[in-house]
């Protein structure tokens, strides 16, 4: 870090937001900061405002969809309301919850789909090709490159959608349930790829995720959103082990649940049964 502390990649200060045509705010008084290379997980019950938080953090609300925004949202210290859509798109990439919404519908191959963003940035052809291959390798879809995007399975479409966001190489990634349709090891592959990306390139990642097992593995901090407000926030391990999570409508990680079930039955967890996450053999079996 340089002598003068750089502005955080993403900062939300006292942010409230309401959609067009509604009087109630979906988000209320949100304070959140995402420094370079950090991963912040967002959990919370359905309709808590998680997807709205993604739209606001990425600057799409109000820029693209209108609505009322109070407070300040900054990317790299710049108020997102002063940025054009083009500027915004190069600083922050957003992955929508439903991958089918994300795919352009105009590309005949997965390769074209992932190349769509970099091409729109006006990058030279060689650079576009490099980025497509890099992004495809990162999410493990290289063998899908010649395929028709409309004929992918749900999980494959999600990986392609993520790859197309990564190919833009934004400094901040906002991901709305990026692994919801992935198989368990696919989930882990994407989790590890994102963690490596944050560590190696300083990309800051805000991700909404119901899979608390995944957040326990990769997030630095976790924010619990309930009724549009931050109900809890702090280091991931601390927040995810909070016994109040189920009452807030959040599924605790498998090991937290299991330990609670054992404790209730008067059985202590034997250290030799760990580690809780993952079967090493299973990881090794992946080619």
């Amino acid at each position, binding site marked *: 870090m340089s002598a003068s502390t750089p502005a955080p990649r993403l900062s939300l200060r006292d942010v409230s937001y309401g959609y067009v045509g509604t009087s109630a705010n979906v988000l209320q008084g949100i304070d959140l900061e995402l420094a370079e290379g950090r991963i912040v997980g967002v959990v919370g019950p359905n*309709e808590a405002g998680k997807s709205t938080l993604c739209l606001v953090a990425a600057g799409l609300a109000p820029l693209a969809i209108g609505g009322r925004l109070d407070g300040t949202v900054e990317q790299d210290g710049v108020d997102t309301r002063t940025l054009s859509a083009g500027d915004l798109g190069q600083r922050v990439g957003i992955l929508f*919850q*439903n991958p089918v919404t994300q795919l352009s519908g105009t590309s005949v191959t997965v390769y074209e789909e992932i190349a769509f963003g970099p091409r729109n940035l006006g990058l030279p052809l060689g650079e576009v090709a490099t980025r497509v291959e890099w992004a495809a390798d990162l999410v493990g879809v290289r063998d899908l490159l010649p395929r028709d995007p409309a004929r992918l399975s749900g999980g494959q479409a999600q990986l392609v959608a993520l790859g197309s966001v990564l190919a833009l190489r934004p400094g901040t990634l906002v991901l709305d349930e990026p692994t919801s349709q992935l*198989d368990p090891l*696919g989930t882990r592959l994407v989790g590890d790829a994102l963690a490596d990306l944050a560590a190696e390139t300083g990309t800051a990642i805000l991700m909404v995720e119901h899979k608390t097992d995944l957040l326990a593995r990769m997030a630095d901090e976790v924010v619990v959103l309930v009724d549009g407000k931050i109900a809890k926030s702090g280091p991931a391990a601390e927040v995810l082990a909070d016994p109040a999570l189920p009452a807030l409508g959040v599924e605790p990680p498998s090991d937290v649940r299991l330990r609670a079930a054992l404790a209730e039955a008067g059985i202590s967890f034997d250290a*030799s049964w760990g580690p*809780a996450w993952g079967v090493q053999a299973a990881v090794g079996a992946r080619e």
Partner: protein
Amino acid sequence: MTAEIVVENVSFVYPDGTHALADVDLQIPRGHRIAIVGQNGSGKSTLVRHFNGLLRPTTGRILLDGLDTVGVHVAHLASRVGLAFQNPDRQIFAGRVKAEVAFGPRNIGMAQVEVEQAVYAALEAVGLTGQADTNPYDLGYSRRKLLALASVLAMRTPIVLLDEPTTGQDARGVARVQKIVSDLADTGRTVIGISHDMRFVAESFERVVVMRAGRIILDGTPSEVFARESWDALASTYLEPPLPARIGVRAGVGSTPTDALLVEALSQRKVAAS
């Protein structure tokens, strides 16, 4: 007695040449709760789309109640087999939640009084009674998924196919889906679920079919499929057993795929030791 659904040596090739199913044989008796799992692209969704006639086998046969589905009209199959899609937006089209849920039952010729009861019961089951007059697209993704599920429940089909029903659901949503599966089974309906959520699979289904590259590679109870001997096969299709199954093996109490089974096995061992 023949099973309700019989899949006989079925292969399926998509028009673009993708071989999605290869020589699949499967029998599903009436009233079973069966989960189909496997890595992305392993053929799970392709397989269940054969059960309601959305797809027809390239080779082989699908028998529904002993009848080859080739001769059966899709409209008839729709009254026998309900499918809740993985992506709710492929399914939702009406302007109000109530109308969306009523469409299916009305379409299969259910009487008006019965339609209203079915709609109410289905919305109640998914927790959307308060949203009956809402526009479906004012609902968040997770609630649109529950709405799509309600539309299928309202048709009261003997066979219910759920494609990734827990995706995007919070803890309460998952608990709701689990209750729906057990309630369906209690009323004698056959439930076929596709899921990547191994905890949901182990807790809610009595049989698990594991697919890889269009073939069935494992078929058994959760305790069998998640037992140590199966871990390599599971890993080959990008799956891993739920945490209690792994802990059970390390703790030496055998295959315990759910928290409850593990706690029970460890408690019994404790009692036996004292």
